[in-house]
């Protein structure tokens, strides 16, 4: 990959600072002209192609493979199997840290889920490798597959999500329910869903002696490098990962997956560079997914519609060989002010690839159930759903009693409702029709997502010519890191964005942490901000301690950095350019590092969340049951908005995911074989353009002095929460039919006419 040429012309407006400007994507021209190099676009000389053969059974073992037939096929170079593979330095089953997940990299002949890799064929062409894989004709010893919520004994997992307690409570839920004037008890089901990033998982691996070069999409390059290092017994510095662009990740590229490691092993086996790209159907298994859930909610209210208790229990599934538990019930911790709340989880093990993080893990599944239940409760109380939510508005975090670091949810409700015209909503369902006789329904949901921070580092430098450099191994998954982080970087060193060389997307740069948990802009941004401030402080030291400088004696606090100059704060007529300062000092470049990290004291003291309110209108054919979203307004408060254009795209994307969750998306698993029957984008339905009406996003002002230095809360995931429930509630309002199994199917709405 040659140096990236990022464009900032022509759509950039700038008035003063960079942060807050709706810059267009600096990598946009590269992308639309096909010049952006994604992992699979790399073709080092001599590269071979690797294709995975996958298991068609979900449980059992491989008893034979026709390796000879595959090898006889013209062009096939080698076939990697459990019996013929390069050794690993450690057993991949060993969890060396909580962020290590088990993977199938040909360590045995056991099969734990359908689509698991059972061999890798390496050939001179993709076609030869593909046919070689087909010729392997595996024979299996089949065991009955464990499928579905009732596949086996349920158990309480030790933790859910990332270290959340399996059970949490505050107050006495049973007493609260017993004392309630009205109660509801409803069970909701959500299906398995797959990330389906447009770009499949891919790797181009090249060994040079004990050095390893990898092109592979990653949401966490340094963590990925660590995993490769331990598996292959290499020092991390020997491994160089490039991941400048991802064609989406949604969590599925957060951890290196088995297939990516197989690509590295294949390259080692044949001693040549190897490319391995998953086929779409092969992404349904080894790269994580959103676990299905069955959630029971019991709510009670007093005579005035105030919640007396909220009990949220979630059943989920995990794989037979690892532990990840969708923390669905935890969605009830933060939103509604019930005096008694209990959340709990249990799970069963099934023959599936381990479910993992998928855009708003726990929050999305929990939100659609909670927002449906709140809607049901409002209706039981005869109250407008917004009025009901306001009545139960949480002034402090209900589960912990902590104050919020900031919470502009009331403003979200107000602005969203006003834009949508919510006040005209009839209380009863099935009251509205359009001119064509279609049923019209309005629903809403509250959105929330925690404002997280991870760890990141950045390196900033000012060069002799007055230009700046910011280095951080950040990840652009399509969300716009190349743009938004560069905006923060430019401001941090007081330079025009075009005077800043923003380096990102490779593992040799300072660790930007992970692009997940909607925390990348906040975390990497904080590191950039502090690195920039540090390098400016050094520059200021140089200037203010040099008697030849017009800034001499101004002291550190006495200067500000703007447009490539340090300016005396109390006398703006006295200033000096960066270039002048460095030239006089005879320094070629001045550098500093900075870090971004959570602030434990603030976290202890405050509950930190982004919030939002989503309003949806659907139309439903009264006899035929087909549903279509016709309007959706989302108002979100997520702290500081670094780039309104990118943020709007993230929120649009999230809202479309919410629509998809409510109406479309589902992996259909054969209940006998455990195979997924719609593992392709023709039949695994996600919304197409015709399903998505013009969406309306409002970003509500919110200043948060506690979350991080820049006041950023993150917008990557919140859009899906609230939205799914809003659509589902709108379907109820249109039809009077409460569907509790998602996605909502046509047959559920075929009420007798």
């Amino acid at each position: 990959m040659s140096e990236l040429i990022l464009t900032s012309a022509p759509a950039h407006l700038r008035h003063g600072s960079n942060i807050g400007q709706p810059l267009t994507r600096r990598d946009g021209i590269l992308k639309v002209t096909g010049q952006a190099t994604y992992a699979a676009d790399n073709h080092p000389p001599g590269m071979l192609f690797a294709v995975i053969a996958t298991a068609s059974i979900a449980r059992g073992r491989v008893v034979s493979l026709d390796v000879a037939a595959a090898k006889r096929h013209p062009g096939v170079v080698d076939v990697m199997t459990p019996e013929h593979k390069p050794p690993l330095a450690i057993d991949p089953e060993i969890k060396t840290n909580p962020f290590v997940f088990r993977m199938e990299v040909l360590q045995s002949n056991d099969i734990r889920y359908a689509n698991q890799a059972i061999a890798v064929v390496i050939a001179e062409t993709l076609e030869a490798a593909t046919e070689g894989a087909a010729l392997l004709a595996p024979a299996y010893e089949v065991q009955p597959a464990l499928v579905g919520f009732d596949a086996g004994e349920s158990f309480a997992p030790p933790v859910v999500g990332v270290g959340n307690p399996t059970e949490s409570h505050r107050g006495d839920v049973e007493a609260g329910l017993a004392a309630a004037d009205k109660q509801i008890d409803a069970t909701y089901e959500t299906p398995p869903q797959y990330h389906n990033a447009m770009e499949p998982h891919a790797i181009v691996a090249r060994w040079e002696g004990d050095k390893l070069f990898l092109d592979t999409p990653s949401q966490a390059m340094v963590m990925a490098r660590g995993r490769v290092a331990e598996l292959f017994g290499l020092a991390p510095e020997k491994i160089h990962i490039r991941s400048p662009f991802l064609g989406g990740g949604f969590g599925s590229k957060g951890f290196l997956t088995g297939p990516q490691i197989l690509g590295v092993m294949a390259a080692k086996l044949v001693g040549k560079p190897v490319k391995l790209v998953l086929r779409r159907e092969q992404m349904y298994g080894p790269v994580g997914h959103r676990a299905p859930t069955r959630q029971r909610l019991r709510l009670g209210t007093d005579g005035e519609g105030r919640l007396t208790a909220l009990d949220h229990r979630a059943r989920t599934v995990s794989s037979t060989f690892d532990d990840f538990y969708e923390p669905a019930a935890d969605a009830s911790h933060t939103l509604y002010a019930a005096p008694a709340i209990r959340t709990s989880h249990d799970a069963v093990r099934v023959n599936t690839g381990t479910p993992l993080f998928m855009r708003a893990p726990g929050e999305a599944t929990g939100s659609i159930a909670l927002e449906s239940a709140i809607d049901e409760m409002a209706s039981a109380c005869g109250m407008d759903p917004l009025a009901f939510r306001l009545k139960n508005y949480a002034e402090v975090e209900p589960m912990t009693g902590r104050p919020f670091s900031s919470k502009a949810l009331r403003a979200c409700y107000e602005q969203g409702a006003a834009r949508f015209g919510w006040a005209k909503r009839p209380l009863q369902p099935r009251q509205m029709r359009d001119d064509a006789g279609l049923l019209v329904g309005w629903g809403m949901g509250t959105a929330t997502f925690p404002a997280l921070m991870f760890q990141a580092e950045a390196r900033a430098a000012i060069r002799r010519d007055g230009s700046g450099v910011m280095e951080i191994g950040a990840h652009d998954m399509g969300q716009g890191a190349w743009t938004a982080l560069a905006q923060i970087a430019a401001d941090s060193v007081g330079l025009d964005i075009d005077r800043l060389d923003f380096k990102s997307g490779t593992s040799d740069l300072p660790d930007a942490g992970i692009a997940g948990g909607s925390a990348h802009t906040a975390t990497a941004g904080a590191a950039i901000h502090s690195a920039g401030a540090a390098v400016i402080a050094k520059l200021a030291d140089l200037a203010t301690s040099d008697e030849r400088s017009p800034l001499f004696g101004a002291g550190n606090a006495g200067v500000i950095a703007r447009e490539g100059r340090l300016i005396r704060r109390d006398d703006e007529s006295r200033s000096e350019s960066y270039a002048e300062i460095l030239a006089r000092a005879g320094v070629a470049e001045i550098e500093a590092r900075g870090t971004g990290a959570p602030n434990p004291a603030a976290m202890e003291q405050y509950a930190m969340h982004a919030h939002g309110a989503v309003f949806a209108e659907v139309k439903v054919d009264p006899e035929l049951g087909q549903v279509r979203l016709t309007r959706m307004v989302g108002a979100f408060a997520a702290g500081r908005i670094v780039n309104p254009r990118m943020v709007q795209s993230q929120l649009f994307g999230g809202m479309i995911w919410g629509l998809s969750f409510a109406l479309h998306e589902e992996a259909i698993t054969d209940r006998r074989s455990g195979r997924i029957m719609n593992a392709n984008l023709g039949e695994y339905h996600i919304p197409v353009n015709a399903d998505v009406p013009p969406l309306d996003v409002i970003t509500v002002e919110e200043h948060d002095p506690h979350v991080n230095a820049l006041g950023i809360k993150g917008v990557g995931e919140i859009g899906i929460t609230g939205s799914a429930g809003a659509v589902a509630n709108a379907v109820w309002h249109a039809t009077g039919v409460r569907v509790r199994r998602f996605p909502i199917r046509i047959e559920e709405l075929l009420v007798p006419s």
Partner: protein
Amino acid sequence: MKQFDYVRPATVTEAVAAAAQPGAVFLAAGTNLLDLMKGGVSRPDRLVDVTHLDGLDGIETLADGSLRIGALVRNADLAHDAEFARSYPAVAEALLSGASAQLRNAATVGGNLLQRTRCAYFYDTASRCNKRAPGSGCDARDGENRSHAVLGWSESCIATHPSDFCVPLVALDAIVEIEGRGGRREIALVELHRLPGDAPDRESVLEPGDLIVAVRLPPAARGFAAHARYLKVRERTSYAFAVVSAAAALRIENGRIAEARLALGGVAAKPWRARAAEDVLKGVAPIADAFQKAARRALEGAKPSGDNAFKIELARRIVVRALTLAAAGTPARIPALPASPFASTSGALHV
């Protein structure tokens, strides 16, 4: 990929001869066939590419008023032919409700007629499937089968034929022109596809080497242009196969139905012509009662083949609606969302 021969015959006769060999199949646009080959569902030894044959891509009106559509006419070209859409609006609407713009630009008339079922077990080579591997069994029968057939299925196969295009075509008595080893012959489209019986692998009455060269709409088909609709219920607004669909066409004279045509899609292994329902409508006023009665008649004998009882009730409702829409008159322009229950939604962009 599996090795196969690729031949590009210069004439129809050569094509027929080349495809009469065992293991040979015709390749048109390949939007279905190549997917099946990539998945190992079809493993032909020889592809006979017909896309370069001359004279099969025309749309012509014959002296007797019939319309003849060459087998290589692209789905999109046919639907966007203004004269065609005016004369056979339900067919154009059905075409535009299928697949995506990209697929319609490629897919041919012949390929559309002979596209294979979307039964997931047919596509999944690890499943038992009597259609793909005769005698192996049918994993759909006790599997995930909510979209399977409710009419004309057998214990050996419950798959449906997925084409939208075929549904109004059978309603309008379309005729298929076939060139075979014995020369040219023609059959009614409604006779082309077979019900599964105990040989679901034999999907049509075509013999090895038989090439569809054209589809013909008889003169009478034009008579329904004023009252013809296609309606397709699906799981998203566009780019999805029908859960159930119906084509309804009426000839209304003096306030009464002089002649009705009705066919259903997504319910059986073939486009399902509902003649009994048509009979019910003959001579009656186009009112709801009559449509209800026709709908009941159309689904007589329907039975669920799995988790799909809802399709029977849905099909009845679709019949009523399609007839109601047809009676109301063909819209001047094909709706932006063709064949959709949301066709009337204003402001929608054409898909």
